């Protein structure tokens, strides 16, 4: 996908042309890449207005989709420099060019700009056009706002109150269309609310290449439908819910769950694969209600896959690990953090060099892996993490299901091929050379078998949900989901991105960084700064791959790391 390519070699600089928007001169590039084909296309009036930060209301135009030009909401007036009979520009007595105002308004989303063009977005005529368009759009609109999931983030509501009029002159009955139409496993359509902007059709046809949506019936009975015998069921369907400017396409997952104005928005990352799509988590009172993609052209454009978007329910599960456990006389007993960490540190400190192994997870943050690496150095422990491979696709989904495999590699936790050290660890345990195993967030019985793990003197496990490894562990430390902590991941392309915590962890669960630094201090590895920012900055200073990065400089969209040498893939 072209608009998600991070730093493709820059083509030669595009010439700029100067246009005037509401009297303000702005220089805009003459051409811009087409959102789907990448081919250079003339800059349109709406793009020029966007660059000049002048709002032009629009429905069908979407910066990441091909232009359709069907809603007419973006109509503006414009003029071009007038030419004399000699084809030379006419000039006013004061030296300014004479502008010939176009007789009719034009849709700004599909009209290219030309040198010297003047665009007027706030004239009385434009205002009355917007009023009229909105009145037309509302003729058959159900005004379902109280039961519509889009209310609060609906462009029809917003533009109606900003540019529309309070009264309708329409006296006839509204056309009724099918409501609650099942388009596919995750999408429910309300045809009465649809304004037929075709964004959903263009998205699935041009971005996903799954051409199943279309418009059926005529005139006022126009409706969105799937091609007969097919369902709207690809891995990107829920993006249409985001780009639908109204509440026509609704997510079955989020439908009637919570009103959007209650949701606290937290900038975060999807942790379901190595792409690391930027997301906004919507939560209220400690419960997560939805993930929506956040725009980042270096990573995910403005999209995310359905599987990643819906992979959040487990965070609120009742059976989350909520307290530390220490095994005594064969049974796990609740313990305080203080006692558990003291016991673990004592165990690790008394271990002979080489008798400890660490299996980290490539789902952990860079900062946590950095501290683990320090712990490993202190204990002369062998480390690795677990590869997690699934199906990928050509749009966003990466076959590597770990969000931070590159972090694990570049911080020296895992070899270039994740998991290559594991047979050595298993053999070490079997031979009795490795007596202590520190496992973070991985189900080790799947890789080593329960019998091998039972041979250990000490199995120290930090995890989020109960599993077979947790039930075998001598020490259990409850950890956090990415949505509950802050940190950074390094994605498949080497983009280092940070995420913020949306909800608080349940019970006594703590972000891993907090207890890892206490373990490091407890085994004589020295004091580590107490916050994520400082750990990141320190890590960036001493790790070649992250050289030059700082937490503050990462911003919302992250920065590219410079991988070095053998570990690069």
């Amino acid at each position, binding site marked *: 996908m072209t608009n998600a390519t991070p730093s493709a070699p820059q083509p030669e600089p595009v010439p700029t042309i100067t246009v005037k928007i509401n009297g303000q001169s702005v220089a805009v590039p003459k051409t811009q890449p087409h959102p789907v084909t990448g081919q250079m296309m003339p800059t349109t009036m709406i793009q020029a207005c966007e660059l000049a930060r002048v709002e032009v209301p629009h429905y069908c135009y979407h910066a990441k989709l091909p232009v359709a030009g069907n809603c007419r909401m973006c109509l503006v007036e414009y003029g071009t420099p007038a030419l004399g009979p000699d084809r030379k520009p006419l000039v006013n007595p004061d030296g300014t060019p004479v502008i010939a105002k176009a007789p009719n308004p034009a849709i700004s989303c599909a009209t290219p700009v030309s040198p010297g063009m003047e665009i007027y977005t706030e004239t009385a005529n434009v205002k009355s056009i917007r009023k009229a368009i909105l009145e037309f759009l509302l003729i058959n609109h159900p005004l379902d*706002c*109280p*039961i519509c999931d889009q*209310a609060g983030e609906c462009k029809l509501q917003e533009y109606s109150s900003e540019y529309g009029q309070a009264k309708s002159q329409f006296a006839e009955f509204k056309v009724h269309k099918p*409501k*609650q139409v099942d388009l596919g496993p995750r999408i*429910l359509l309300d045809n009465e609310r649809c304004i037929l902007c075709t964004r959903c059709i263009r998205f699935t046809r041009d971005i996903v290449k799954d051409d199943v949506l279309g418009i059926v019936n005529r005139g006022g009975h126009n409706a969105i439908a799937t091609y007969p015998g097919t369902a709207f069921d690809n891995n990107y369907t829920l993006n249409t819910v985001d780009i639908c400017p109204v509440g026509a396409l609704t997510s*079955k*997952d*989020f*439908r*009637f*769950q*919570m*009103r959007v*104005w*209650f949701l606290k928005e937290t900038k975060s990352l999807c942790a379901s694969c190595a792409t690391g799509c930027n997301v906004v988590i919507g939560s209220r009172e400690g419960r997560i209600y939805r993930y929506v993609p956040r725009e980042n052209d270096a990573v995910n454009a403005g999209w995310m896959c359905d599987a990643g978007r819906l992979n959040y329910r487990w965070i609120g599960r009742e059976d989350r690990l909520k307290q530390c456990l220490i095994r005594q006389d064969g049974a796990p007993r609740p313990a305080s953090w203080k006692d558990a960490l003291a016991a673990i540190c004592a165990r690790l400190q008394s271990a002979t060099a080489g008798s400890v192994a660490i299996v980290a997870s490539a789902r952990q943050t860079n900062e946590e892996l950095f501290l683990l690496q320090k712990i490993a150095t202190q204990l002369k422990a062998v480390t690795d993490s677990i590869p997690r491979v699934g199906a990928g696709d050509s749009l966003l989904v990466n076959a590597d299901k770990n969000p931070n495999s590159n972090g694990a590699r570049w911080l020296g936790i895992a070899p270039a091929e994740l998991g290559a050290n594991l047979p050595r660890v298993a053999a070490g345990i079997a031979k009795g050379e490795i007596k202590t195993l520190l496992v973070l967030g991985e189900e080790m019985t799947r890789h080593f078998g329960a019998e091998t793990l039972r041979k250990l003197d000490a199995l120290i496990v930090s995890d989020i949900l109960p599993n077979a490894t947790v039930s075998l562990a001598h020490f259990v430390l409850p950890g956090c989901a990415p949505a509950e902590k802050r940190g950074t991941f390094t994605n498949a392309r080497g983009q280092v991105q940070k995420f913020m915590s949306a909800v608080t962890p349940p019970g006594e669960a703590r972000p891993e960084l907090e207890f890892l630094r206490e373990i490091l201090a407890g085994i004589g590895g020295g004091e580590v700064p107490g916050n994520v920012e400082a750990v990141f900055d320190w890590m960036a200073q001493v790790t070649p791959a992250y050289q030059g990065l700082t937490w503050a400089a990462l911003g919302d969209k992250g920065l590219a790391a410079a991988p070095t040498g053998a570990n690069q893939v």
Partner: protein
Amino acid sequence: MIVKRKPLTFWERLYLPAVIYGFKVTVRHFFKKKVTMQYPEEKWAVPAGYRGAPYLVKDQEDRVKCVSCQLCEFVCPPKAIKITPPGPVPNAALGNVEKGPKEFEINMLRCIFCGFCQEVCPEEAIFLMKDYSLVGLARKDMIYNKQKLLELGGTHNDTIQKWKHK
């Protein structure tokens, strides 16, 4: 500021004149018309427009009018209202009613009877009624749930009848 206390005069130190004056007021009120209401045996008839406790109403065809839009929850200044939205699974028992609250609670200990919920409600589903004396033996008794609110609210003669015309 320092206030100087003047010593009492002889007349003031006698006290008796003040006591007698007090008795006079008491005796005068013995023979006046009584203003005290014998509450709770005797109840106050509230004037029209009085804002008492907010309750939910049903329309004349026994449908719950509230659509769980949560505007009242949003506007309520003391956060007395807590609504549980229905979620995506339609309730077949409700016919064509697309959305309604799964649970609706008003904490009457928090409610300040301001009437914002009634004013903001787009469905005319909640009204401040005439009840001003709410009692309960525990805090949790004072959190009225949907069933109780609907029972107390009764039927509202509705002109919108949203779902009838859907």
